[in-house]
């Protein structure tokens, strides 16, 4: 982040434009820094986001899908939705971009130390959860049991399929993938995230739950966690809101007196409980 002028991006190069999903609507972009000094200054943790600048189109905020334990590259998994994301999808490898960040508060990976973590994700919201999972796995000894519940509408819409296959082989990670509708060749679970969570979530003692996904998934998963005995202080959410500056100045992303960009996007459920229900 340029401390003198936080509106200025740093120049980046698009190394890889990879189609993640069978509907071709989500791609993962791998970016490299053009200047060594910018790379060293870009110190981040999972859960934070950055504004990606597509020259001629504008900038949009995306959570980092990469983990800081994967140096030299930033990854963003982006759903094609509007002007900037469509332009991003059409960029060829080698294109010049800008990135402004890191912005926002990360997942509380320090308090996670020595604790069990259950990561619950749905749809393309899994990007920052991928960053968190990689981070925890790369510092595996610091954490207790790790459970990942990841759901998508269909097998083709799961992100990071190769990586998931690798995680499935590990004995130090309990990965549960599930889809709403199975298809030929799918050998995993069929079912919604809340039901699967109820089945596989570890006991709440000494455990943090991290949840990110579409509103309907969150709505039905939170009661499952609460019923299982998870206190709101240990249920971690990552919020989405329309943003521009990312600095808590342009005004639009507030929930009550908090700005999602600078005071979030990561909040505990306890913190959200103290804010108006407007998101």
């Amino acid at each position, binding site marked *: 982040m340029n401390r003198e002028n936080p509106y200025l991006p740093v120049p980046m190069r698009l190394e890889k434009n990879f189609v993640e999903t069978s509907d071709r609507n989500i791609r993962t972009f791998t970016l490299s820094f053009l200047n060594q000094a910018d790379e060293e200054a870009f110190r981040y943790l999972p859960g934070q986001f950055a504004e990606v600048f597509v020259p001629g189109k504008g900038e949009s905020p995306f959570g980092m899908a990469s983990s800081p334990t994967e140096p030299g590259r930033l990854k963003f998994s982006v759903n094609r939705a509007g002007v900037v994301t469509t332009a991003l999808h059409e960029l060829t490898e080698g294109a010049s971009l800008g990135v402004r960040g890191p912005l926002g508060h990360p997942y509380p990976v320090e308090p996670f130390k020595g604790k069990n973590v259950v990561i619950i994700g749905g749809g393309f919201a899994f990007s920052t959860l991928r960053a968190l999972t990689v981070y925890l796995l790369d510092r595996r000894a610091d954490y207790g049991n790790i459970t990942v519940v990841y759901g998508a509408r269909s097998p083709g819409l799961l992100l990071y399929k190769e990586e998931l296959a690798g995680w499935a082989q590990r004995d130090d990670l309990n990965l549960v993938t599930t889809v709403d509708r199975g298809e030929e060749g799918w050998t995993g679970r069929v079912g919604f995230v809340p039901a699967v969570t109820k089945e596989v979530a570890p006991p709440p003692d000494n455990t943090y739950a991290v949840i990110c996904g579409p509103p309907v998934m969150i709505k039905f998963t939170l009661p499952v966690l609460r019923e299982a005995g998870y206190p709101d202080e240990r249920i971690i959410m990552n919020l989405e809101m*329309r943003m521009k500056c990312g600095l*808590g100045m*342009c005004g639009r992303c507030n929930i009550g007196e908090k700005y999602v960009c600078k005071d979030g996007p990561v909040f505990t459920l306890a913190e959200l409980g103290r804010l108006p229900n407007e998101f």
Partner: protein
Amino acid sequence: MKKVKKEDLAAFLDRLASTRTVYAPCRDGEGTVDFQRVTGAAEIADTYGNTRLSIKRLFLPQTETLFSYRNGEDGPVFDVPARPGPAVVFGLRPCDAKSLGMLDGVFANDQYTDPYFTGRRADTVLVGLGCVEPCSTCFCTSVGGGPFDPSGLDVLLSEVPGGYLAEARTEAGASLLGGVPLLDAGSDELAAAAAVKEEATRKADTLPLAGLKERLDGAFDHPVWAKIPEKCLDCGICTFLCPTCHCFDVCDEGTAVAGSRVRIWDSCLFPLYTLHASGHNPRPTGRERYRQRVMHKFRYFVDRLGCTACVGCGRCVVNCPVNLDIRQVVGMIRDQVEAGIRP
């Protein structure tokens, strides 16, 4: 207390405008008074209630280029416009000066500093003019200011027969006044000025705010929000004229090869303001949007920065096309909402 004669002040402003950027209220052909860059005292409006547009546009312009870019073989190169440099604002009202102090807390928050706003603030000296005749729509006293509140100013001038009492509030203000011939004010002049101040201060105290914050703390889901904005057109004029409304949009103009990033004023009353790319909108109707405007001014801003984000200038009252009067809105909340607990 010192005093400056009118003709001495005019001569000083003439000299000042030849060496520095000076903004002052000027009357245009249609009688509208707004801040303009002036080259001499003769251009400055002599009597006015308040300027139509607030002072914020001199520090947060309605459109402003943040940087330009050229996208070459070695990636994009960014170019930031030069800092505008030293300026003096003459003749702003204490309410507008107070609003800038509030915006300081917005543009230099606990994590980030906006160099454009803070740069202009640091480079600008504010010479304010107390309000002898507050307008019928003014309520600055009620929101913690006053027609002669010097707190946001470098110099406060208070009109007396033949000149102004001049009170320097900061070093920058004292240094500026060093260029003006100053006389000692007489005790009769001071007594007359004190009486004028007292009367004006009383006149601008028209809106009881006691208990409002406590009521808003428990009012998020109150039915009053469906009632209040029924006639609101979501036109946003109140937010554009408001000296403390600071919301902006950031957009790019140009091509993949070259262009610029600009920020422009935006408004929480516009539906697009919070619309997600997914189609979801956390504030889909006027009910949520108007609630946000009131809550931000009288609750959220108080929680974050310790003061109400309203200076009582009354511009929103004067210019609303459907006469949605913030004073009546506050009254409705006072009458219909019980003090409650958050959220």
